[in-house]
Each structure stands twice: as structure tokens, then as C-alpha cells.
């Protein structure tokens, strides 16, 4: 078994000069090809037994004295591979700013308020059809120092393991219609033809009446080759 290659027409380059910190952190020499062995085609297994009871509900898992402020949302989608096969039982970790655009991380010095009832950390595991779901509040935009008047669009960070080390993916989910997307060098770092895959879609079917606005974000990880590669 082996995995289809990382599709560099889908993934951002390692140096993308508009995103300034890539200039000293992206390697300059070409990546060295490697033939897949068990090292690349196996990976850590973290199933539902690793989840806490409220890990999938960011509106509840850090409450101190009430509900967090902000627009409550539900985010759901399918994790699948490039052949369309669902990827069940895979760990999804998420983190985000609060509704005011402030991260709880000690390094964040943005002058927006922290919310005592919101941390912004969560995780879930995809079910047998590859579907996942979590509850949170819509994250706010926040300023950063990449360039003059730089603002990150609303986004949620995602980390996925998938079935193997080769399928590891860290990405960000964005929201439809956000005017900051066109100005954001991190989003723009993804190749133009692939960017739309990072933008979730509003869904009235997923929206829960009198409770939460629904967004759908499907995630496609690398697929497996159907037959062993002949050498």
C-alpha cells in the first residue's frame, strides 16, 4: 500500500513572500523524494476513547459562570480521501479565537477582550461514514503585523491525523463571503484553483432551529493507490 503524492497544485508553497515569516522559515532546497514504507503508511491511532465528554462542544467545555458570548455555530462535514472514500475514526483537533477575535494563548496581545467562558479548544473523531460535528461560536477577525492594517479573516484551525503519517494535515476553515479573504496572504498562499476548498458553506439544513447557524466543511486527505506501484 502506498499513498498518492502530496498535490503541490493544492498546497501552498514553502516560501510565499507576501506572508513575511515564510521568507526565513521555508526551506530553500527541493524536498527529497522518498519511497513509502511502513513508516509513512502507518500512523498514530487516536479513537473516541481519547475524547473528553465536552471536547466537541467549545461553547460548553470552558464555561465558568455562563454561556460564551458570540454567535453559536455548528460545524460539520465529511473527512474523505481523493477517491471519495470516507475516512472513519480519525482525530480532528480544532482551535480558534473567541467572538471578539482574541486567542486565549498567552502570546496574543490583541486588545480585544477574553471571554471567561470560552477557551477555543476542541476535538472530535469522525464517525464510520467519515462525518464529524462540533459546536462553537463564530470566531472574530483579528489584526496581525504581517503588513500595514493586516487582519486575519474569521477562521478555525484544524489538525487531522488521517490513517497514516502521510495523510497528516493542518489547515484552516474560513467562512463564506468574508471580504478579508482577498487580502489575507495566508489564505492567498494556497494555489488559486484550490482556495475555495478552504471556505466552508452555510447550510440551512445543518442550521439548528433557534439554536445554531450551520456550516459545512468537507476535508479531503490524500488517497491510497488502488494497486501497489510496480517497480
Amino acid at each position, binding site marked *: 500500500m502506498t499513498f498518492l503524492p502530496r498535490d503541490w497544485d493544492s498546497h501552498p508553497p514553502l516560501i510565499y513572500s507576501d506572508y513575511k515569516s515564510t521568507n526565513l522559515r521555508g526551506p530553500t532546497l527541493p524536498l527529497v523524494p522518498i519511497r513509502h514504507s511502513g513508516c509513512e503508511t*502507518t500512523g498514530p491511532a487516536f479513537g473516541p476513547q481519547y475524547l473528553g465528554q465536552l471536547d466537541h462542544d467549545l461553547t460548553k467545555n470552558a464555561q465558568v459562570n455562563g454561556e460564551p458570548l458570540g454567535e453559536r455555530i455548528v460545524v460539520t462535514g465529511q473527512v474523505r480521501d481523493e477517491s471519495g472514500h470516507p475516512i472513519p475514526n480519525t482525530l480532528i483537533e480544532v482551535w480558534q479565537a473567541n467572538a471578539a477575535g482574541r486567542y486565549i494563548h498567552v502570546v496574543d496581545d490583541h486588545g480585544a477582550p477574553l471571554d471567561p467562558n470560552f477557551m477555543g479548544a476542541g476535538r472530535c473523531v469522525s464517525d464510520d461514514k467519515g462525518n464529524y460535528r462540533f459546536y462553537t461560536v463564530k470566531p472574530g477577525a483579528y489584526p496581525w503585523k504581517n503588513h500595514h492594517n493586516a487582519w486575519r479573516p474569521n477562521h478555525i484551525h484544524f489538525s487531522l491525523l488521517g490513517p497514516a503519517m502521510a495523510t497528516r494535515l493542518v489547515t484552516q476553515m474560513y467562512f463564506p463571503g468574508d471580504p478579508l479573504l482577498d487580502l489575507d496572504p495566508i489564505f492567498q498562499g494556497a494555489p488559486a484553483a484550490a482556495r475555495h476548498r478552504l471556505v466552508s458553506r452555510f447550510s440551512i439544513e445543518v442550521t439548528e432551529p433557534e439554536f445554531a447557524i450551520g456550516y459545512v466543511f*468537507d476535508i479531503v486527505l490524500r488517497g491510497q493507490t488502488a494497486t501497489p506501484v510496480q517497480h
Partner: protein
Amino acid sequence: MSSEQTPSQTVGPYFAYTLTPKQYGYNFTSIADPQMVDEKIQGERIRITGQVLDGEGAPVSDAMIEIWQVDAAGRYPDASRQDGFTGFGRVGTGTDTHNRFWFDTIKPGATPDGQAPHLNVMVFMRGLLSHLYTRIYFSDEDALNTSDPVLENVDETRRQTLVAEREETPAGTVYHFDIHMQGASETVFFDV
């Protein structure tokens, strides 16, 4: 239904309260940690430590490093494993005074298909839009390193960037491995 790969994005500077909460002191459980072994797990105890250095040689204070490894017998852990060894470690470079990463683990064995003992490494940080893969081999495994099929495929002048130096200290065996993002000693990264 799109079945094209979802693009990667940077892990950003604020991953720690979800991905490495225990290490950074956040009130959220950790699924993976730099401390990868307890007394139940068989094998030679080792510590791996080093810095991530940017193109100006400055240590990176907001990188996250993950490793995936076999056990001392060369087997990859799976869900059926009883001793609690997951083979997976995760650490951020933001809690050590010198921005070092470290893993306390067991030395991996050679794999049945003839690869020298090594750790599979994933590198994430602000300023890295797609994560990177590298490997850590061991300086006391010269013979096996020489016949390793992956090292063999790396330009000879760059192989040393993949080998950690062994040191015996009063606290135990330590391997030193710096990750150079750029420069004359730029680490070899693989297109896994």
C-alpha cells in the same frame, strides 16, 4: 463533491492550548506529549533535544514538532497495543528557555524491511504554510545508517543533517538534533 486534496495552512502561533496544552499549562487534556514513555514500556531510554533555527540562525519559539516511531523491536504501535506506547510524540518550542524541543522516548529498533533506527519527524510553525517531514537517525548506528535505503538516496554532503549526535550525561542518554530551516546546513526535508 470535490475529491481534491484540501490545502494545507499554517499551524500559526497559537496552537498550544489545543495541541500541546499540558506542556504549556493550559486546562485541556493532551492526547500527545513530549514524555512518551513510562515504566511499563520496554526499551532503551533516550532524550532527543534540539532547536529549530530560521534562516538567520535564530531559534524559533513557536514551532511544533511531532514524531512517529517504532518500538524497540521495530514494530509500529497500533490500536491493539496494551502497554500504552502510542509511538507518537508532540512538543512545542515555546516553553524552554532556549526554545529547545525535547522528547523522552525509547530508542526505536531497525524496521523489518532494513531501515536503520530512526524517528519520523513532522515540523509545523508560523511561517510554514505546508508542514515538513524529516527523519532523525542516530550517530551510534553507523553500520545500519550506511545501508539505509532512505539515507542512501540523500546527497552524501547533506546526510549529516539527518543524524543526531549521541551524548552520555548523568541524567541519561541524550541525542542532539537541530533543525535548520535554511542556510549552509539546511536540514533535508522529504516529499513524503
